[in-house]
C-alpha cells in the first residue's frame, strides 16, 4: 500500500510540476517576465525531483529488485525538489536566508560533506519545510492584499506540502507508524490544491509566441 501511494505521489508531483512549469514558461515566453521564469525553474525542478524518485522506484521494482530504494536516489530527488521550493521562496524576495558574512557563506555548505546521506536527506527535508512554510505565508499575505481566491488554494497547497515534508521527516523517528503514509496523502492533497488555480488559466485565447517550440 505504501509503495503504491509513494508511486501515486511521485507521479502526481511529476505531472503537476510539469503542468505548472509549462504554463509558467509559456507565460515567460509571451511576456518576458522574470517572475514567470523563476516559477518555471521552480516547478520544472519539483517535477524532475518527483520523477527521479519515481524512476528510482520503478528501476528498483522491475530491474534491480533489491527490495528497497537506493538511499542516494531518494536524497537526489528530494534535493532537486528543494531547489524548486527555493525558487518559489526566492520569487517572494527571500533575501534574509543568505548570511551577509562571506565567512558564513563559505562554510554554510560545509556540513553537507561531513554527514551521511541519511542526514543529508533530513537536512533537505527540513530546508524544504522552511521554504514551503515561507512560500505559504507570503502567498496568504498576498491574498489579504488582493483577495485573489486562487491564492488560498496555492497557500493551502504549499502548507500541505510543508506539513507533508514535516511528517515525512518526523516518520524517521517512528519508522513503523502511520506517519509516512499520512505525509504522502497530505502531499498528494497539496499538489492537487496547487494545480486547481493553474487549471483555470485560459491558455486557449493566447496567441503563442512564434519562437516558442
Amino acid at each position, binding site marked *: 500500500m505504501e509503495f503504491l501511494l509513494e508511486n501515486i505521489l511521485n507521479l502526481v508531483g511529476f505531472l503537476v510540476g510539469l503542468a505548472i512549469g509549462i504554463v509558467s514558461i509559456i507565460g515567460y515566453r509571451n511576456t518576458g517576465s522574470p517572475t514567470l521564469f523563476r516559477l518555471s525553474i521552480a516547478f520544472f525542478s519539483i517535477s524532475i525531483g518527483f520523477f527521479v524518485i519515481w524512476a528510482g522506484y520503478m528501476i528498483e521494482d522491475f530491474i534491480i529488485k533489491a527490495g528497497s530504494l537506493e538511499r542516494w536516489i531518494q536524497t537526489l530527488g528530494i534535493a532537486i525538489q528543494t531547489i524548486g521550493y527555493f525558487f518559489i521562496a526566492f520569487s517572494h524576495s527571500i533575501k534574509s536566508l543568505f548570511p551577509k558574512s562571506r565567512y558564513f557563506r563559505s562554510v554554510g555548505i560545509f556540513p553537507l560533506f561531513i554527514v551521511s546521506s541519511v542526514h543529508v536527506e533530513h537536512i533537505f527535508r527540513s530546508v524544504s519545510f522552511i521554504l514551503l512554510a515561507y512560500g505559504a505565508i507570503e502567498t496568504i*499575505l498576498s491574498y489579504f492584499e488582493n483577495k*485573489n481566491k486562487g491564492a488560498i488554494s496555492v497557500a493551502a497547497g504549499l502548507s500541505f506540502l510543508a506539513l507533508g515534508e514535516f511528517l515525512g521527516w518526523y516518520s524517521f523517528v517512528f519508522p513503523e507508524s502511520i506517519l509516512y503514509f499520512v505525509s504522502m496523502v497530505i502531499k498528494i492533497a497539496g499538489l492537487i490544491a496547487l494545480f486547481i488555480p493553474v487549471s483555470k488559466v485560459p491558455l486557449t485565447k493566447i496567441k503563442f509566441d512564434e519562437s516558442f517550440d
Partner: protein
Amino acid sequence: MAEYRTHMKIIGDILSTTRDDLQDEDGATVTYLIRKANVSHSRISRMLKILVSQGLLEKVNEEGSNKYKISQSGREFLHAYNTFSGFATNFGLTI
C-alpha cells in the same frame, strides 16, 4: 502607502490606457499617458520608444503632436499579460 509597480506592470498600465481609455480615436498624447499611467516624463519617453520599436504601440503624428495607439501585437501582448498576471497572482507574485 504608494503601491510599488514593476516595469512590466507600468507597461501593462500604458497599454491598457491606450486600449481602453483613449481621449479620442486618434490615440493618446504623452501628457495624457503620464497622467493615466502615473509615470514621469523621462521614464515614459523611454518606455514609449521601446514599445513603438517592439511594435506594441503605433505612433501617430496628429496636427504636429505625437499620439500613441495600441497595435494588434500590443493587444495580444496585453491579453497575455493579463492572463499571466492573474496566474502569478495565484502564487502571491507580481509579474
